[in-house]
């Protein structure tokens, strides 16, 4: 009865501090997304024309990869809640591996765009595109570093069914990175 009551309690996953950090990050990206939409409304033809050069296939691949990586992190959290450190470590490794696919694909895309002679000052669309996606790319890299540190601790048996706030905190940050991309992908690549 007591255990059932505890399970029914509404509990925020991970440390409280990460949720304030997530709110701050979302606020920054939110302002950037809205600014993009406002500037686009004043430069409609330029944005629609410039958007055609973007590689939608890579955008799709990166979306599928981030969603799947997030899913693996959910499985890692489930595993540690069931006191299974080995499974938690396994799912964290798979989430890092899929996250690295994003990094490689995005790096290739940046190189491809650079090879076309496109840079931040080419036009206002590319200023936004490169700034927004590079800012997000840096968050992906930070997220991977966090997941790697969590994975190392999980591998040493540093988390348990009772104490696994570190896994949930890293997971929450990684899902935020996914959430931001879910808005960024259609905004920059698809909607016209």
């Amino acid at each position, binding site marked *: 009865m007591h255990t059932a009551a505890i399970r029914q309690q*509404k*509990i925020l996953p991970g440390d409280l501090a990460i949720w304030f950090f997530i709110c701050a990050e979302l606020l920054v990206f939110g302002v950037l997304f*809205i600014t993009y*939409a406002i500037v686009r409304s004043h430069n409609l033809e330029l944005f629609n024309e410039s958007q055609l050069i973007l590689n939608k296939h890579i955008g799709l691949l990166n979306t599928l990869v981030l969603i799947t990586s997030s899913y693996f992190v959910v499985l890692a959290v489930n595993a540690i809640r069931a006191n299974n450190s080995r499974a938690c470590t396994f799912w964290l490794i798979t989430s890092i591996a899929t996250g690295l696919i994003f990094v490689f694909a995005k790096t290739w895309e940046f190189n491809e765009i650079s090879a076309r002679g496109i840079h931040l000052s080419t036009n206002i669309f590319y200023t936004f595109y490169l700034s927004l996606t590079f800012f997000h790319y840096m968050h992906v890299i930070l997220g991977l570093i966090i997941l790697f540190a969590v994975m190392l601790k999980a591998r040493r048996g540093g988390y348990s069914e009772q104490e696994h706030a570190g896994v949930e905190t890293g997971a929450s940050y990684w899902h935020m990175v996914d959430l931001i991309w879910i808005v960024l992908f259609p905004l920059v690549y*698809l909607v016209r």
Partner: protein
Amino acid sequence: MSIVMATRPWIFLIVLTLFSYGLSMQGYSGQVFVLILLATALMKGQMIIDHFMMLKSAPLMWRIIITMWLVTVIIVITAMYSAKG
């Protein structure tokens, strides 16, 4: 959350992503297209908030805060695109 409970939203997210991409590859543009794509992004975002971030089982205030961010951003973007889209 069981594996089945976690897998269902993941499958929905994959399907919705492929739907948006497929629609875009057909070369559609205009207000209806914008509305469909942004509504799809809204559904995907809500799934991540509720099932991946696990805010459905968190204190309501946090679910509301993050959902409000998503809804506000999508509504403002939709309004800006509808104005001249």
